[in-house]
């Protein structure tokens, strides 16, 4: 029997190795699996490379992971927060944190490529800018493009609305954002949901993330 439900958040987050690349869903606070990140803080894995759109702010769990020295590298599009992120700013200024800045759409597409077995793609985004430096640039149809390589996550941490025991997922409103693309890309995909429903309760037409991409789901009621 396929049963991806786990009893609690500690079980959900167990087994993440030092040095892992961890994809984290969310756009700002929305769709960000803060409870899984809190458990990751307890779990103890170090030297992590995290891939996410923003990089935390205020006193959220991402900032706490940064402050605890657990993050080696951040791959993101926008490491600034309206709440401020002095921990990030300090670590970055001191050279203690590697930052790879990636345009938001390119970030999503590189993760999708990782999930799809695509070894690279040519996008016009960032061509002719500083972010293309050091990358192969090539003209197609008279226009400059940048070769972007895939991102593959050892782990993906995702927040969704509902799951079933096969790991099928649906999301709420703008909390969908990076969830589907990251869930498909994690070698180990761990999902926190508000509610686990009976198998068959999700209409096959309305499943957004098919269970094939998901390894563990934990119900948190939020």
């Amino acid at each position, binding site marked *: 029997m396929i049963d991806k439900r786990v009893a609690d958040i500690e079980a959900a987050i167990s087994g993440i190795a030092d040095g892992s690349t961890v994809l984290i869903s969310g756009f700002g606070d929305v769709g960000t699996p803060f409870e899984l990140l809190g458990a990751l803080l307890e779990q103890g894995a170090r030297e992590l490379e995290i891939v996410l759109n923003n990089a935390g702010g205020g006193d959220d769990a991402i900032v706490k992971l940064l402050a605890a020295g657990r993050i080696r590298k951040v791959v993101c*599009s926008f490491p600034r927060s309206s709440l401020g992120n002095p921990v990030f700013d300090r670590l970055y200024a001191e050279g203690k944190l590697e930052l790879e800045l990636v345009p938001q759409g390119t970030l999503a597409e590189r993760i999708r490529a990782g999930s799809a077995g695509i070894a690279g793609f040519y996008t016009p985004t960032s061509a002719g800018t500083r972010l293309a430096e050091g990358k192969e640039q090539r003209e197609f149809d008279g226009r400059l493009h940048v070769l972007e390589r895939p991102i593959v996550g050892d782990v993906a941490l995702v927040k969704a609305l509902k799951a079933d025991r096969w790991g099928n997922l649906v999301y709420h409103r703008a909390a*969908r954002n990076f969830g*589907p693309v990251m869930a498909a890309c994690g070698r180990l995909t761990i999902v926190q949901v508000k509610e686990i429903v009976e198998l068959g309760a999700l209409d096959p037409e309305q499943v957004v993330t098919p269970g094939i991409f998901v390894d563990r789901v934990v119900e948190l009621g939020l």
Partner: protein
Amino acid sequence: MTGLSREQITWRVAQDLPDGAYVNLGIGLPTLVPPFVPSGREIVFQSENGLLGVGPAPAPGAEDPQLINAGKQPVTLLPGASISSHSDSFLMMPGGHIDIPLLGAYQVSERGDLANWMTEGDGKPPGVGGAMDLAVGAKQVWALMEHTTRKGEPRILERCTYELTAPRCVTRIYTNLAMIEVRDGLLVREIVEGLDFAALQTLTGAAIRLAPDCRPMRTAA
């Protein structure tokens, strides 16, 4: 010369959005545009985080905290709206499906280069967000900006001095002083009342041309 207020700039932009257009709203000034769309026109506003058909701000207390725009402000959805994942949402920009991205700008060059993601070091790490994705692909890109910096230095230049978001992408510039088309250089289509062309040229860091049909810049009655 202060010219138009921020609201007046966004009002002016809204008047030019054609009925039925798909319009992305960059963060900053562009998010102020929607309320000023003339009645009778249906515009589909996209927010890069997966929303198409963004409606007005919700009534206080009626916010859905998981329904936000690119600027992380609460929004609503109109009838006909749809939700996409990030990978599906970002198909719409480089793929050329968005008719007009409205983007804030630090600088625009005379050939339409856009700089809107990075100023000279404020000591903090740079953030690019969706700026570069939005600036490529669309046939038209409209930049919204103050004509000069607070110190009075021009933001419209022969060459951008800040890092580029994308080369040769801006097709039209709306500032507090003028509306300028980027077409083989800079063509001034409208100037605010009380400013003449020569004065506008002194506030602009590249050569500008006066359109034969240049008009006073419209503002809300």
